[in-house]
């Protein structure tokens, strides 16, 4: 008898491969040309547009939408890429509902914003499908910059530096470049190997060398980089996962949500991945939502996300929460985990409401998603994160202080650090 959502334990093939493939492909289809022009026509071309202010990379949104409306999506893409070289990925993963689309005057007025994210995807897809890179590298300056971490911050920094003519070497500890775009984004949001294609397209600027499998602290030190390069940019992300610190945490069946997400991203046949019948996800952020939703898409019978605080405190947006519940995820608010139950493997999790009342949630698989932390050799800190600049070492993205931990914020910080490095290297500022 084949496996089904009801099969006990952690097993593969709960749903047929074709069904799982469909589940992972169905999210937010791309616009066709006519749809895009109709959607673009809804934009009012606001003066000093709130959407543009809300965008961490300050993309000129009214302009690119008008360029779509007038039948020039490639020009629209150039407008986007000029501010955000990862505009393609951001179009897929940005929580637009809490950024540009939240402040769109049509959202405020009608509860129905201009679909900026989907329009951005339409424009960027259009240009990227042609395989052309819209920027030309300046003449080689002879300056060399090391970038650690080939995630959104590092790549955005590397691209902008290369654009200005500097030679960039990007190191990453993983086998593939892309960082969280490659390993951390939910598989259904970035289909068709988009992250890898985006990296390949971005590198067409020239002047960037990528060295994968190189870990800071193991294969090189900050001091060695400092000595060998004119400047260093750290975009190393958050490599550690917070532990629950509870009894039973080491039982079989308890795992980090980020690892589950990364494995999913790298799997060709997702149905071959094992998932529990009764899955519990502990946490309330995007990572928790991505793990919960994807467990459901793989065919788990019940998926319960438990968050210790109220709905309004949850860092996953209301849109994401609704998407999760629409996929069949149950969200429990205001309950903290007390202990993980089970003899040799996990059988359930005991939770306590703020009132003290407890309940046990049946589980054969538990994903921890209560946040990530900075790890690695001691580097100048600003609170729990890295300072954005110390001497000739810059930092940006999730590892650095300031801004939300979002792809788009990482891109902005990488880009801005590159501009600052460029100013320093060219002697414009110190």
């Amino acid at each position, binding site marked *: 008898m084949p496996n089904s959502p009801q099969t006990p334990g952690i097993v593969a093939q709960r749903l047929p491969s074709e069904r799982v493939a469909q589940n992972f492909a169905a999210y937010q289809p791309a616009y066709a040309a006519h749809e895009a*022009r109709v959607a*673009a026509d809804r934009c*009012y071309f*606001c*003066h*000093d*547009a*709130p959407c543009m202010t809300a965008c961490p990379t300050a993309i000129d949104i009214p302009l690119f939408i008008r360029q779509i409306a007038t039948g020039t999506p490639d020009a629209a893409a150039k407008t986007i890429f000029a501010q955000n070289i990862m505009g393609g990925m951001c179009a897929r993963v940005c929580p637009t509902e809490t950024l540009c689309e939240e402040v769109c005057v049509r959202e*405020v*007025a009608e509860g129905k914003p201009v679909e900026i994210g989907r329009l951005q995807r339409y424009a960027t897809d259009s240009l990227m499908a042609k395989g052309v890179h819209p920027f030309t590298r300046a003449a080689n300056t002879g300056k060399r910059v090391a970038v650690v971490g080939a995630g959104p911050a590092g790549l955005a920094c590397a691209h902008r530096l290369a654009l200005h003519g500097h030679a960039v070497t990007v190191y990453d500890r993983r086998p593939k470049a892309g960082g969280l775009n490659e390993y951390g984004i939910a598989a259904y949001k970035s289909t068709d190997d988009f992250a890898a294609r985006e990296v390949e397209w971005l590198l067409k600027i020239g002047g960037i060398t990528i060295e994968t499998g190189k870990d800071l602290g193991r294969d090189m030190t900050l001091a060695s980089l400092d000595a060998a390069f004119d400047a260093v940019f750290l975009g190393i992300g958050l490599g550690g996962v917070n532990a629950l610190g509870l009894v039973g945490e080491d039982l079989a069946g308890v795992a980090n949500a980020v690892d589950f997400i990364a494995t999913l991203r790298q799997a060709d046949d997702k149905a071959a991945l094992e998932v529990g019948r009764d899955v519990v996800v502990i946490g309330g952020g995007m990572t928790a939502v991505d793990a919960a939703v994807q467990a459901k898409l793989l065919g788990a019978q019940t998926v319960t996300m438990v968050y210790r605080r109220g709905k309004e405190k949850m860092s996953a947006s209301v849109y994401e929460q609704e998407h999760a519940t629409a996929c069949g995820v149950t969200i429990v608010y205001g309950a903290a985990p007390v202990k993980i139950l089970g003899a040799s493997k996990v059988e359930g999790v005991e939770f306590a409401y703020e009132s003290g009342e407890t309940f046990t949630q049946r589980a054969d698989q538990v994903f921890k998603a209560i946040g990530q932390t900075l790890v690695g050799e001691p580097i100048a800190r600003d609170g729990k994160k890295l300072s954005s600049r110390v001497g000739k070492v810059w930092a940006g993205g999730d590892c650095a202080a300031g801004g939300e931990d979002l792809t788009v914020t990482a891109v902005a910080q990488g880009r801005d650090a590159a501009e600052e490095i460029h100013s320093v290297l060219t002697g414009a500022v110190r």
Partner: protein
Amino acid sequence: MANLASNFIGIKSPNPFWLASAPPTDKAYNVERAFEAGWGGVVWKTLGSEGPPVVNVSGPRYGAIWGADRRLLGLNNIELITDRPLQINLDEIKAVKRKWRDRAMVISLMVPCDEESWKDILHRIEDTEADGVELNFGCPHGMAERGMGSAVGQVPEYIEMVTRWVKKHSRMPCIVKLTPNINDIRKPAEAAHAGGADAVSLINTINSITSVNLDSFAPEPMIDGKGTHGGYCGPAVKPIALNMVAEIARNPATRNLPISGIGGVTTWRDAAEFLALGAGNVQVCTAAMTYGFKIVSEMISGLSEYLDDKGMDLSDLVGRATPNVTDWQFLNLNYVTKAVINQDDCIKCGRCFAACEDTSHQAIAMSADRTFTVKDEECVACNLCVNVCPVQDCITMVEVPKGGVDQRTGRKVGEYANWTMHPNNPSVTAAE
């Protein structure tokens, strides 16, 4: 439900919505479908002289402009008059009229500019039992190159001459269809009136090129790499048509000349506007060609509801707005309004600000929190902010009452006074 029965120059129809002489009225099949759908009447597609029929192009004959969602806003055509044999048209007209006695059946005519040609065609159509004729002095493409259509309509003397011939050789009511491709629409209307026309209909289509193909560098619609100007119609031409109808309706020389209003009528509201400016009925083409004959149901229900709401008969509406069309020089220069932005309705898009700041009078202030307010001391009441605001009625023009002070000029709002009375007008002679 208001009675929409219409009597236009003695031609009766159950409603004032006729299909204009055009492709939809070229044969019995279409016209019968139109009558089944509820159209009050048709003007049959223009007939030419006996003999070999005209020939149409076999490539695209229509061009268009569209809104973002492919809403058709304007259409042009290079189609000629009917290309079917005269006798087939005459037989079909007669058969359809016999079957649909309560509907108006008018025949559009276009023959060479000599008395014999007109006498001949009028004689041939006499037997059809049609209700009237419409003289096509309007089509601006193709036939005009052969001295017909708008080539006649652009010369008032010809209009008068041909109209006279028609009245001399026919007892049928005669409508003269005017071309808008002329400087002053009053002149051809006066000529038709002088020639004895029972009514004028307008507008025919406007000379136009709808678009240029930027790959082949030729106008659309394109025939084998070339294009020619075609007749423009549809919603885009309505404002031009409304003005021309009003000009004729308020001209003392043609004040009582009945008008059949044509030009972009798409909804009951468009029709009501033509009627209010003095049209006795309306003719429709592009809307039917875009959506099919069924649209007349909306026109009928909409106009009925409007008349019921207003407690008016159809005849009360005709010309109701005509007295309020005047010359600029008679507008009250002491009528002062100011734009007022309703902050509850404002969605803070800032379009009013951009428009006023960049292109008008810098009369709108923008605060750090995107609150937009009108500076009365700068506002000239141009209405641009109202027109660019995406929210209807969010910005309104509020009158400064008589005796109030216009913050822009510092002057009290006075009694009615127009340009003919203004001290800056060099033509004003001192009243001494």
